[in-house]
């Protein structure tokens, strides 16, 4: 395998580093966050997306995701 392209990697992002804490606070919701800062959250993706549109937020470096509830086991 060729050498990993570290320059294009995401290993320096802190966004994945504290997912359990995100689960405790926002489990079962959709969030938009920049690094560890949650900018918006909603029960549905449609609501979250609408909120982001209405806020005319700069979405550069913002990551949107569904947060798994900590009390569930997934079998996708």
């Amino acid at each position, binding site marked *: *395998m*060729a*050498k*990993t*392209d*570290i320059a*294009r*990697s*995401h*290993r320096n*992002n802190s*966004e*994945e*580093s504290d*997912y*359990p804490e995100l*689960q*405790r606070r926002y489990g*079962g919701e959709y969030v938009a966050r920049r690094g560890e800062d949650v900018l918006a959250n909603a*029960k*549905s*993706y*449609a609501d979250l*997306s609408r909120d*982001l*549109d209405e806020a005319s937020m700069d*979405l550069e470096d*913002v*990551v*949107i*995701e*569904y947060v*798994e509830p*900590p*009390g*569930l*086991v997934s*079998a*996708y």
Partner: protein
Amino acid sequence: MPIEFLLSRKLTPFGLVSDPRIPVTVYTHGGVRTYRFLVGTGADFSLAPRRLAEEVGLEWDDLHEGNVVGIERQGTAARLGRLQIRIGTIDLAIRCLFVDGPRVPFILGRADFLDRFVLIVDTPGDRIILEDVGSS
């Protein structure tokens, strides 16, 4: 050249488990957005909420209807569309099932995605590695 991502962990009632999610760029009407998709090797096709289909310009009524089943086997209605995405610097179109319902996760399934990449989930090394092998 391989692309590397940090492998996170998630909480379950039975302890922490690896949680292979990677950032995926999607070109929506509202601009470029980045989503964290679960790399779901058990999923036949990718999955996303209905709203995303509308945001990329797909007409809901024109999409092919289908049914997606999980462990409960009862199934959920879904519609199949093509989603243009970017992973790292690589653009590709994937077939994606869009579901109109609550708590729909963003999942990268095998179809089209794993036709394009070799996937390594290196749990001891806390990393996910994708190697582009091109389209077949």
